[in-house]
């Protein structure tokens, strides 16, 4: 089993090396989706193993895969497959229109694989310091990916992303170091003081006051990386300027990694400090995120930023579910992460196509999308339907579960505010989407009329939506895994 986890980590690294050596050629381009599928396979194998036998340690105790990690590996694999498959078509169009050079495409391929490798380390590492290093690596890799287009706006976006990201991640490091300090001074073997498994054992013996400061820093640090308000300001700029597949990858799963790390720390904090502290922080962050997202979506003019704020909203919802903390809320949070990952990656990839079609990211520059390009318009519409939490997609099930969990845990007023704000967001998104999808006169097309007709080009969109709908209709395939993962992080 250890070999299997090692395989999961090595595959993206090997693909990165191959792309580095041979450049972005047809056969190397298709390696990335294959590696995504292999990751899903590894995730499933590990999940089956973990559900039967229980968490497994590998690589000399450094790596530890439990139900939550297996679920996350599957999510990473799924989103990676979707985004890298679309990336093949995306880069082919960009190379065709001269928007990017083969050298930059090569760097792109390498960096995406490095990000995926780093994410796999995040979810499998047992040492929280290694988790931090892996999250930092994803930041560094994605900063360069955001700068892929090399125009004024993407430079500005990368600068803001790196500066704000560095401060956020440094805060998290400070928190991690203090947690390490507190756990070393609570007796027990100092060598694995920072390992999550040992931290959970010694949690009751940790000194509450000292731990509270460190957990506060950790929540703020990883909150910044996850895009929770009020430290979310980098997110809209980055998601709107990054190339569509990169934005899809980041919105789908990179922000989920920070939330994963946050959940790991929350387990320790809840055992040591009781649920109250982290719950209040997360509830505040969730409400901030929802209100900020709603306020900024109402009169939004850019559809990529609209989706970015939808990410802030969904991260807020996941934080709310985590704040509630009961097993039902936790499984809802994880299900929401998966649903959001799938729907968001399809949505952002669709914006890539819309950008090629209309040449503008402004909402009022796009009219009659369903008529002009039925496939892209349809996919974009369906992904928005999923993000709005309408049936048959899984986000509806998770949102209902969050509401029920919140009510049963006595957080009625928070749920009430959340629902009203989400109503505002619902109307805002519907209004903007209808402008784009229907609408009368069609502005002149400035960009060349290049759009994906090949089956492989369309496959990722369809697969992503079908997966989200399938989970929405019946969560049978991942139900046991989801439940086990929820128990890992639930109170």
């Amino acid at each position, binding site marked *: 089993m250890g070999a299997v986890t090692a395989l999961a980590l090595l595959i993206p690294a090997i693909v990165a090396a191959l792309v580095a050596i041979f450049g972005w050629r047809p056969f190397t381009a298709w390696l990335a989706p294959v590696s995504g599928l292999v990751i899903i396979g590894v995730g499933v194998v590990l999940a089956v193993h973990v559900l039967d036998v229980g968490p497994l340690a590998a690589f000399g105790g450094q790596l530890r895969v439990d139900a939550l990690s297996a679920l996350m590996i599957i999510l990473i694999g799924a989103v990676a497959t979707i985004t890298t498959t679309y990336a093949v078509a995306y880069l082919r169009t960009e190379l065709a229109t001269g928007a990017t050079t083969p050298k930059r495409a090569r760097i792109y391929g390498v960096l995406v694989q490095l990000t995926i490798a780093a994410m796999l380390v995040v979810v499998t590492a047992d040492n929280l310091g290694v988790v931090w290093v892996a999250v930092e690596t994803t930041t560094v890799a994605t900063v360069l990916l955001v700068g892929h287009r090399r125009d004024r706006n993407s430079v500005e976006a990368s600068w803001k992303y790196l500066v704000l990201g560095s401060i956020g991640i440094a*805060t998290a490091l400070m928190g991690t170091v203090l947690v390490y300090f507190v756990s070393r001074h609570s007796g027990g073997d100092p060598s694995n003081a920072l390992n999550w498994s040992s931290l959970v054992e010694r949690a009751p013996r940790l000194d509450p006051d000292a731990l509270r400061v460190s957990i506060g820093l950790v929540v703020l640090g990883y909150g910044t990386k996850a895009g929770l308000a009020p430290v979310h*300001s980098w997110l809209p700029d980055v998601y709107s300027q990054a190339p569509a597949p990169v934005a899809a990858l980041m919105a789908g799963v990179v922000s989920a990694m920070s939330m994963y790390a946050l959940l790991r720390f929350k387990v320790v904090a809840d055992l040591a400090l009781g649920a109250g502290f982290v719950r209040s922080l997360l509830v505040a962050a969730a409400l901030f995120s929802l209100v900020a997202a709603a306020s900024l979506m109402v009169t939004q003019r850019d559809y990529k930023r609209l989706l970015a704020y939808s990410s802030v909203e969904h991260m807020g919802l996941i934080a709310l579910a985590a704040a509630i903390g009961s097993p039902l809320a936790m499984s809802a949070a994880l299900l929401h992460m998966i649903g959001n990952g799938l729907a968001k990656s399809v949505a952002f990839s669709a914006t890539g196509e819309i950008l090629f079609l209309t040449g503008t990211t402004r909402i009022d520059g796009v009219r009659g999308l369903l008529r002009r390009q039925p496939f892209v318009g349809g996919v974009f519409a369906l992904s928005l339907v999923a993000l709005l939490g309408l049936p048959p997609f899984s986000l509806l099930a998770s949102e209902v579960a969050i509401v029920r969990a919140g009510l049963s845990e006595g957080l009625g007023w928070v749920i009430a505010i959340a629902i009203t704000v989400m109503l505002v967001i619902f109307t805002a998104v519907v209004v903007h989407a209808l402008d784009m999808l229907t609408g009368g006169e069609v502005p002149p097309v400035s960009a060349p009329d290049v759009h994906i007709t090949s089956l492989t080009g369309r496959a990722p969109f369809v697969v992503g939506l079908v997966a989200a709908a399938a989970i929405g209709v019946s969560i049978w395939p991942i139900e046991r895994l989801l439940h086990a993962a929820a128990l890992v992080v639930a109170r």
Partner: protein
Amino acid sequence: MQAGLVALSGVCVALALAPTVLAEPLERATTVVSGIADGAPITTDGVYLQLSGIQAGLSPLLLATGLAVMMIAALAVVRRSRVRRTTRGIPAWGCGRTVQTARMEYTATSFAEPLQRVFDDVLHPEIDVDVDHHTESRHYVQAIRYRLHTRDAFEHRLYLPLLAVARRWGDGARRIQNGSIHRYLAYSLFTLIIVLLVSR
């Protein structure tokens, strides 16, 4: 085009004649919500409907058949006594003005005009009447245009102000994300300070 209308009215009539068809599923739905269900509100033995709360009975089926029977009876009486054939196509009574044009018919606006005048302080209709007099003398009217427009109270008093507030709120909220990195860093710094103070 009328297919839709006919279908819907058909459903209404069907429901009127046999409301109990829906009674049972509705009742099952209400039992889910605790506190509302108080047994079966409508009980029926096929023809008669019995409301559980008050001791009142109704039988839409019988009423409809009774109506039909009476109509057929009246028709029979009228047809039996008819002496000569019906003549059709004679001009309607125009009070001496024989040429009846479609423009003289009542339109929806004119049909509703009396009712609107009764409820005018609720509806606040905007009425504008413009009269074209004959060029020769002001006494003779060539054409009268009567336009009446009632604004939808809800839309005018509730939805539009609400949308205006939302738009103002949205524009105001733009300042949060005005692009200056120093503003974003200020957010991070203050949040860091607040978190440190909170978790002391």
